[in-house]
């Protein structure tokens, strides 16, 4: 084990000519292989051999060899028993190590396997989540486009609804326009009174001239309004009108009167007015306020399918 002992042990067995020790001249692995057997065995064997001879000349100078003859020789049964005891210890150690390892093995394997499974599961999960993220992102983009489209449509529709409400009389409107006063001919006979068809002609002419909203004596006209003569009085729907008739017309005040003259119904109205001698007065007004028409009760509901949609839209946009 210790190098001086080694060198001495070797020199007792076979004296070497080299002066340098083994560990200097020999490569490490070679030395390990060469000295694989504990040198002590050789040392002790050499000592025993020296004891066996009555006068060992070679080991005479060594102090340990001088002491060893004083010791009694070990009983022959002892080495085997001690060796057996050590072997038993070795067996116990080996068994303990093996048992411990095999006891830990399933645990280690199981934990490892479960970790691998967990990793795989998590990886799958992550992949699934990423795919889902992608899908959601795509659908978010789609939805955003849809929302933008919807907002645009909604704004367009709101504008259209506002326009239509103004046009159709479902909302009160305010704006510049003209004020027309119509009355029966003064001191005229019955034939010279203003009749429903006369008013209808004037209103049609105004619509043609570009009127946006018309009211007669505070009654808003819509696409569904009809003038009717019931006896001497003109009725709008079921409301009787009392002359003079005041028409508030919202439109471009600069062009409305001129356009009225140009339109077919307008010319007819002027012809009527001149031949029958109606009182007719037209003034521009910068701010007219027209009330909303009375909401009509819903009478029939029709499901809007694709086919009826276009025709319905046409119906709505016609007035």
């Amino acid at each position, binding site marked *: *084990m210790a190098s001086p002992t080694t060198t001495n042990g070797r020199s007792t067995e076979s004296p070497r000519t080299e002066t340098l020790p083994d560990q200097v001249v020999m490569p490490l*692995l070679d030395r*390990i*292989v060469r000295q*694989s*057997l*504990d040198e*002590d*065995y*050789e040392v*002790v*064997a050499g000592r*025993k051999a020296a004891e066996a001879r009555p006068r060992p000349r070679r080991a005479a100078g060594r102090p340990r060899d001088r002491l060893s003859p004083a010791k009694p020789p*070990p009983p022959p049964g*002892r*080495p*085997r*028993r*001690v*060796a*057996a*005891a*050590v*072997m*038993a*210890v*070795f*067996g*116990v*150690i*080996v*068994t*303990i*190590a093996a*048992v*411990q*390892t095999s006891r830990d093995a399933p645990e280690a394997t199981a934990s490892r396997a479960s970790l691998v499974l967990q990793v795989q599961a998590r990886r799958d999960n992550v992949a699934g989540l990423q795919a889902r993220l992608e899908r959601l992102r795509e659908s978010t983009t789609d939805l955003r486009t849809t929302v933008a489209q919807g907002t645009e449509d909604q704004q367009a529709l709101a504008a259209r609804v506002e326009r239509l409400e103004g046009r159709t009389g479902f909302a009160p409107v305010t704006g510049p326009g003209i004020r027309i006063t119509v009355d029966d001919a003064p001191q005229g006979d019955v034939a010279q009174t203003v009749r429903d068809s006369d008013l209808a002609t004037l209103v049609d002419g105004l619509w043609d001239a570009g009127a946006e909203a018309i009211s007669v004596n505070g009654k808003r006209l819509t696409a569904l309004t009809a003038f009717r003569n019931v006896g001497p009085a003109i009725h709008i729907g079921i409301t009787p009108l009392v002359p003079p008739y005041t028409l508030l017309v919202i439109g471009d005040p600069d062009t409305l009167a001129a356009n009225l003259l140009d339109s077919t119904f307008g010319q007819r109205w002027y012809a009527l007015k001149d031949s029958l001698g109606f009182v007719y007065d037209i003034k521009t007004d910068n701010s007219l306020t027209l009330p909303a028409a009375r909401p009509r009760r819903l009478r029939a509901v029709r499901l809007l399918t694709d086919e009826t949609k276009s025709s319905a839209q046409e119906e709505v946009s016609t007035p």
Partner: protein
Amino acid sequence: MIAAVGLLVGVILGLVLQPDVPIGLEPYLPIAVVAALDAVFGGLRAYLDGIFDDKVFVVSFFSNVVIAAAIVYLGDQLGVGGQLSTGVIVVLGIRIFSNVAAIRRHLFHA
């Protein structure tokens, strides 16, 4: 023969008792086993060489085990436990192989 019986007894004892190794000692048990294996094969070779001595065997056995475990323990404390145990196992493995080769030469004269 009596050594083989001792080994058998030890194995049986270990199997029957199955003592729990303290957690702190567990990492050093395999290296101790390898060191003990080296000592056992060395002893067997010495026996076949005819120079077996019980005292040398006992001392080499326990010193091998203790030193191997101590080296690995030191390595663990220094943070190079893995490398040191590799070195110990390489050296002990070479010794075991060459001892077994010598035993083989004795047994089979080859």
